[in-house]
């Protein structure tokens, strides 16, 4: 889901940087008010977890690969704004140091994976878990469902961003300048593979860790706030 350099045109790249700057500013402002000093190590672990879980490329035999993001888990434990900052740091380091995701696409990749994904996941989790007890299975299921749906929403957005490029930028001869596949290919490809395979990875990882935290330190589960 890491859009490389050259797949999005300058308009899209610029647009998402412009959208993300106020989101990052707001995230800092809100996290400044809500984050406790004792939560900082957990935030660092969350960012590191997201970084490393994205390295676990899961294969579709004979096809493509994909991975979980771990962002819904961070959002449940620390709130979506803190998750936004944590995943942003992971994505920026992946782009700059490892060329995983383009430098021009940092705005778009952060919008998909560090903003929409944790927020969608957080609110889906909130709605499903509602006021259920901290140690309930309902919270484990809510975490899994939130992980699955949020990763798919992020994948659909990514597919949309890929898909509009051939419509936005063309040579006089009709060749695409950036991602050559239109919405009719990009959307079903991105949604299909995430709905079939990678979404389940996010679901299982999120649910398992929440289950583990319930046993180890249930207090953590109620501290994430929007």
């Amino acid at each position, binding site marked *: 889901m890491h859009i490389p350099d050259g797949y999005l045109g300058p308009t899209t790249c610029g647009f998402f940087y412009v959208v993300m700057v106020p989101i990052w500013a707001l995230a800092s402002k809100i996290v*400044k008010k809500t984050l406790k000093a004792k939560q900082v190590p957990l935030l660092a672990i969350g960012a590191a977890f997201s970084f490393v879980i994205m390295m676990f490329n899961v*294969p579709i035999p004979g096809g493509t690969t*994909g991975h979980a993001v771990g962002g819904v888990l961070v959002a449940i434990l620390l709130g979506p704004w803190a998750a936004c900052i944590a995943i942003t740091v992971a994505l920026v380091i992946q782009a700059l140091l*490892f060329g995983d995701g383009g430098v021009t696409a940092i705005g778009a990749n952060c919008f998909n994976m560090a903003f929409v994904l944790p927020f969608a996941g957080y609110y889906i989790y909130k709605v499903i878990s509602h006021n259920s007890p901290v140690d309930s299975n309902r919270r484990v299921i809510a975490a899994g469902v939130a992980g699955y749906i949020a990763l798919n929403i992020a994948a659909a957005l990514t597919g949309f961003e890929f898909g509009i490029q051939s419509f936005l930028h063309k040579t006089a001869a009709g060749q695409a300048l950036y991602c*050559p596949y239109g919405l009719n290919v990009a959307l079903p490809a991105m949604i299909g593979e995430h709905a079939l395979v990678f979404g389940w990875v996010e679901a299982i990882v999120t649910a398992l860790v929440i289950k583990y935290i319930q046993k180890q330190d249930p207090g953590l589960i109620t501290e994430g706030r929007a």
Partner: protein
Amino acid sequence: MKVATKLWIGLTILIILSPLGLILPEHFKAGSAWGEWGAEEMQGLVGYIPQGLEKLAGLWNAPIPDYAFKGWEDKGLPRLSLAYIISAVAGVGITVIVVSLIGKMLAGKEDR
């Protein structure tokens, strides 16, 4: 043992296992992620390299491209796995340092 300690141990295990993210796709003959093809792959897929893509693709020279050391690309899975683990250690290390710094800047000293 504190929960944080257990989570760090879990993270360490993930780092050690990370080469699975390299080995499994190789084993099951899975190609690149959708939309993350190199310029040559793109040529094979659609018959041409989009001009803008060709220009922008080489814009940034990452020091450890694709979690592999430059020149190690053809050295086989064991070496690539080692590079993958070292990349994971470096990436996780830098992520932890940066997030801790940002977190300390943002979080109040007193516990609220």
